């Protein structure tokens, strides 16, 4: 069967500035990643990687980003991700870095990994909880983490997990 194979790269935006998370947008992130690829791999790298390059999913609360690129050029993309140093939006620069979590062939595998990862993160937050209500809130969201089926046009599955 002939079809285009993609790779989906799951990353997390880590930053010290709490305002940075709020201004994460798909366009700013896409520009920052393309800029990093251009700096590291030059015009050839940028052209190769941007054949099917999009930001598929973005979660501003946890800073999770899902990028898509072609299978032939995902190595160029992955090796340029450590060179992203800041996000720029509305004339403000926020220093940050991207932490690659998982590379998968389909969105579904990345989703499964993300659910597992969020579960572990929630467990870690549970340990640092101070008040009782926060604790109960987190425990409730932990128990409700699951991959539920939902009828949608593209056939994607919705995930229902706790966010920060």
């Amino acid at each position, binding site marked *: 069967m002939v079809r285009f194979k993609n790779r989906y790269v799951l990353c997390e935006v880590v930053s010290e500035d709490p305002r940075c998370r709020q201004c994460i947008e798909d366009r700013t992130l896409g520009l920052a990643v393309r800029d990093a690829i251009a700096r590291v791999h030059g015009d050839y790298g940028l052209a190769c990687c941007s054949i099917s390059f999009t930001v598929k999913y973005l979660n501003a609360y946890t800073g999770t980003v899902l990028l898509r690129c072609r299978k032939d050029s995902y190595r160029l993309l992955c090796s340029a991700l450590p060179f992203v*140093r800041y996000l720029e939006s509305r004339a403000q620069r926020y220093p940050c870095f991207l*932490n*690659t979590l998982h590379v998968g062939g389909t969105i579904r595998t990345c989703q499964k990994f993300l659910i597992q990862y969020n579960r572990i993160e929630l467990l870690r937050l549970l340990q640092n909880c101070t008040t009782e209500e926060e604790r109960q809130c987190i425990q409730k969201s932990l128990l409700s983490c699951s991959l539920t089926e939902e009828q949608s046009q593209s056939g994607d599955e919705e995930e229902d997990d706790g966010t920060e």
Partner: protein
Amino acid sequence: QSNLTVCFSVGYSAVALNHVIDFKEKKQEIIKPVSPSELFPSLPIVQGTSKRIKVLTRLTLVVSDPSHCNLLRSTSANIRLYDIIAVFPKTEKLFHIACTTLDVDLVCINVTEKLPFYFRRPPVNMAIDRGIYFELLYTPAIKDSTMRRYTISNAISLMQVCKGKNIVISSAAERALELRGPYDVANLGLLFGLSESEAKAAVSTNCRATMLHGETRKSACGVVYTVKKPRKVEEEETAVPACKKAKTQA
């Protein structure tokens, strides 16, 4: 200290704090390393497992003269307190001496300027036999474009001589935002000319071997780890997820 918190959240299981000694000044005394328990009242837990993060101490000697190496042979008590010892040779002779006779765990390769000497095969092979690892830094590459070129050219020339064995990639991060996660550092290894499995090893198994080498040096013979089978499995037998060194200027 914020560097360490970021490390922990990103997924490293052991961190070494570096103390650099430069011999340009007349007198340098080796001070006692900062004990990790002073920095953290309780060490946080590694993400994904249930063990605590190890914080080690490490000493880097910048040598540009053979007389500086005498410091290593001296019986100063403070040297023994460091877990890992690294040397940063500046000339070809010193590189040869470091690979063949000096009692160190790591040899740092300069990435910030064009190397004044070429690597030759005999000392590199001897270092590999002795279990000494070569270290590359990646933070200068992230900061500056000319540094990036030097880093890549030096790294690739090292690869051509040593065929990708015994390489450790570490960061010289002075701020928390200059760190990168273990998966990203392994991808950087691909840029340096390593193969995929070698790059992952450079972040995980080679670092672990360096830690064991440091312990061997302290105890003056081989290290034997025992496994308690019925009760619990000791962590030494399973692969630790990632291991990295963070350099902080003292």
